[in-house]
């Protein structure tokens, strides 16, 4: 009997050891799955693409674009406590690592896209419908990657110059998911070549996905719109014009011509002029809030904005311009206890569906990263630079007519270019384009004509700041994190 006990005890120990080995080697988390198991079905592919779009929705920063603070159309008020003042003040106030988070976020998105592009190749499909879906998802990834590299090369490298692009340092082209890679800077030309290659790949894969107003997924029209934007950067005037004009002449996205409709488009997230609008809902997929352009405070009974437009930008609009009545609103303010009335930015007043149950706006609107109006401006600018003033004026007037009810005539050469640039400034104000445009045009600026300095942040380099053309801070610094950890990443951008 005693012997038997011994056997039982020994048996229990063996069972215990055996079980524990199994458990130790097979513990997996419950809130995540292994990366190596993420590419089994077309449904997996749809989830990778959903992740990509979800990240894009957060990364489309038009209503809260720091480049707009850095440029010449805004003043910072006294109620802004240090948020983003570095961008606004330039010089020693603007630290090299202020914009590091953009680099980090965009490369994180690219890492996911790279992993997915490779992983999709191992997914086998069993039906034609599945194959078509997989093809579309792959196209989505390439187009998203092109978008991110374009943002990166604009912000962290010199403007594309056909004469020097082949030697100007661009940004690292990370095209394969590899955590341990230490990539060097590709040239500006190589980056743009890759962007165009990714767009072409996307266009081929998305050729049977038709464009539609307010599409929440990428399609052939969105690919064409990005192509137009990129070719304009590259001074490929003919290519930019062709791409932009293709979208204009499709007639899918007619311009809005009345004040009421234009206001509704911006307030209620209309889709008429949008080639793409990320999916949003009121629960788990809300859009980012805009900057504090209004900041209505019910206890003060007035607005307490952090950023207000300069009088100069307001003065750029005619009174009959429907953009003036849409983008701006004159309203009571109470800023640090100082009361008065100012003209405020009302382009992102907040879609009421996001603040149901509250009387105060949450200032959330769906991002509108690709609008047809930009295509008219690209077509006009490209044609004007391509010695084609007639087509330039046609595109310019189509937009101007829709917004102001009038047309320009007899414009040529410099006057034509300047008018197109002004129109672009008016149309795309506060959408994050301005600083990139100044950089592309090789212009400096003076942030002139504040509305009322009583309400504004004062001190060195605030109101009336002058930045010369070609100032090195138009191009952001590479993050010191990457320079420190990646010996191949050099040189730092000039001046930083």
């Amino acid at each position: 009997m005693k012997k038997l006990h011994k056997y039982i005890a020994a048996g229990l120990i063996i069972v215990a050891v055996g079980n524990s080995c199994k458990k130790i080697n097979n513990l997996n988390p419950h809130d995540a799955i292994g990366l190596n198991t993420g590419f089994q079905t077309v449904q997996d592919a749809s989830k990778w693409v959903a992740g990509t779009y979800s990240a894009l929705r957060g990364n489309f920063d038009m209503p809260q674009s720091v480049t707009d603070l850095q440029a010449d159309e805004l003043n910072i008020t006294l109620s802004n406590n240090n948020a983003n003042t570095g961008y606004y003040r330039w010089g020693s106030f603007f630290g090299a690592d202020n914009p590091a988070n953009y680099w980090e976020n965009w490369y994180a998105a690219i890492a996911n896209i790279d992993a997915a592009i490779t992983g999709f190749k191992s997914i086998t499909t069993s039906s034609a419908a599945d194959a078509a879906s997989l093809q579309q998802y792959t196209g989505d990834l390439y187009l998203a990657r092109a978008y991110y590299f374009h943002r990166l090369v604009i912000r962290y490298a010199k403007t594309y110059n056909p004469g020097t692009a082949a030697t100007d340092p661009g940004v690292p082209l990370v095209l394969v998911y590899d955590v341990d890679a230490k990539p060097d800077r590709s040239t500006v030309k190589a980056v743009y070549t890759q962007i165009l290659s990714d767009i072409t790949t996307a266009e081929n894969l998305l050729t049977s996905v038709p464009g539609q107003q307010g599409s929440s997924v990428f399609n052939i029209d969105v690919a064409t719109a990005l192509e137009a934007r990129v070719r304009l950067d590259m001074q490929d005037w003919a290519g930019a014009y062709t791409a932009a004009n293709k979208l204009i002449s499709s007639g899918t996205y007619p311009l809005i011509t009345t004040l009421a409709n234009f206001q509704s488009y911006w307030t209620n997230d209309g889709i008429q002029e949008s080639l793409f609008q990320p999916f949003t809902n009121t629960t788990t997929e809300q859009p980012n809030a805009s900057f504090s352009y209004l900041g209505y405070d019910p206890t003060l009974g007035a607005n307490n904005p952090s950023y207000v437009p300069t009088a100069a930008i307001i003065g750029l609009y005619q009174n009959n311009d429907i953009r003036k009545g849409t983008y701006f609103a004159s309203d009571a303010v109470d800023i640090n206890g100082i009361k008065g009335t100012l003209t405020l930015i009302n382009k992102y007043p907040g879609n009421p569906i996001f603040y149901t149950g509250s009387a105060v706006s949450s200032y959330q609107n769906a991002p509108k990263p690709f609008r047809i109006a930009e295509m008219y401006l690209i077509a006009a600018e490209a044609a004007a630079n391509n010695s084609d003033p007639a087509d330039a004026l046609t595109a310019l007037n189509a937009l101007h007519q829709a917004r102001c009810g009038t047309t320009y005539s007899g414009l040529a050469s410099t006057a034509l270019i300047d008018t197109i640039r002004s129109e672009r400034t008016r149309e795309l104000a506060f959408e994050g384009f301005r600083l990139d445009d100044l950089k592309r045009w090789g212009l400096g600026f003076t942030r002139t004509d504040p509305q009322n300095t009583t309400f504004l942040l004062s001190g060195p380099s605030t109101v009336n700041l002058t930045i010369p053309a070609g100032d090195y801070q138009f191009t952001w610094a590479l993050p010191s994190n990457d320079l420190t950890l990646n010996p191949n990443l050099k040189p730092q951008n000039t001046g930083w």
Partner: protein
Amino acid sequence: MLGGQEYQDETTSAFNGYGSGLSDDRLLLLNDAPNKVAIGSSEYEYAFDSFFGRAEYDWNDKYYAEASIRSDRSSRFGADHREGTFWSGGVSWDAKKEDFLKDISWIDRLIIKANTGTQGNAEINGVGNGEIQDYESLALLSGTSFYNGVGGYSITQPGDPYLTWEQQQLTTFGVDVSFLDRIRLNASYYIRNTSNMLLSVPYPYTSGFASVTQNTGSLENKGINIGFEADAWKDPAHKGYVTLFVNADITHNKVTALFDGRQDFPQPNYLQAWVVGQPVTFYLPLYAGVNKQTGAPEWYLPGPNPSITNRNPNEVTSNYDQNALQQNSGIGQYAPFTGGFGFRAGYQGFTIETLFNFNLGKHLLSNDGYFYQNPNVFPGYNTLKVAANYWKAPGDNAQFPDINNYQMQQFDSSLLENASFMRLKDLNIGYSLPKSVTGDSKAFKSIKVFVEGRNLFTVTKYFGPDPEADTNLVYGQYPNTKQYTVGVKATL
């Protein structure tokens, strides 16, 4: 002799529900909450499997030896790297028991010890949340980035299949002695080498990640630990005594290896650096003061190797650039010399006890100063009076630059403060009621009334609210409070 096996299997499950806007005390279920009813759940598991053996030997109650060995496996590490083997050994000698000391009456006790051994660590601290992570070796993706109702995938961690045990080897030599029935001394010298440290290693952002948990780097700590007590006066008949005590810890730490074979790593935006062969030091632009003629702030230009401090008054610049100007300040965050002292005394039931703590060579970086000495950048903030000492005219010997042309305060060495301090941590005065009072009562064995004060006063040159803060950067730190307690302690 002892041998054994140990198995640990831990599962943590949690779920929660959340709702707000309840307006009726009588209806407090989640169902009654009108808005934001959120739910969540989590589950984490880990397992350890260990075999161990231990042997002890004792000869004549004079010589002692012990040795142990263990093999541990943890589910937290990479599939082929789960196992770690650790050992220890030690000897001690009770010299008082030797014949040649036995009869020397003034020595009460003399023990000499030496130990060395290794230990494994499987606790991986999460970035940001400080919680122990269980799955860091795995490359993972989660599905919580929703788009149009689909749970979108994103890679949450790259994982490291080579992840394994962090190891610490501690060697100590110690002596424990007491003599004259009054003086007690416990001293030891130790060397602690930590290797294969489980750290979140910074990665270039182009990798898609800011950091990856890996085994990297080594750290060495050496030091002397001393505890000393002396009975200055004893009168057992009247329960009288005065005991003085001092304890001190002198340490020196240095980085002995870094990831990727690097010799130094200035942590971007942390204002600290790890340099091989040196303790962790503050690494930041070194402020040279204000130029008397122009009112411009000036910083020392770093030499070719920023790990070597360069304070050459002929090499200064007025262009602030945190990354270009940062260099080794040679100043560490941690105090190399810490300890405490005080006395305990009593007479006829009255007692008084004091404890002073001190830290010498400690430094803190005042983030408060960046906000409160910077009126032309933070106009809405309260400003310290010292900020009025800015440059106004040529020849001024000012602390701060010309307010009209320069940012008053940058992140530089002028924010670095010596936070050495001595503090009366504890003062306790009490009186135990004599047995003649409590003896009649069967309810209480003893009753003591006392008054206690904590953090009563501090000697320091540090400007901020509390030099005792255990951090590198101080912003809006809550200080330790002065506490006064009056109490009665009754033992049943």
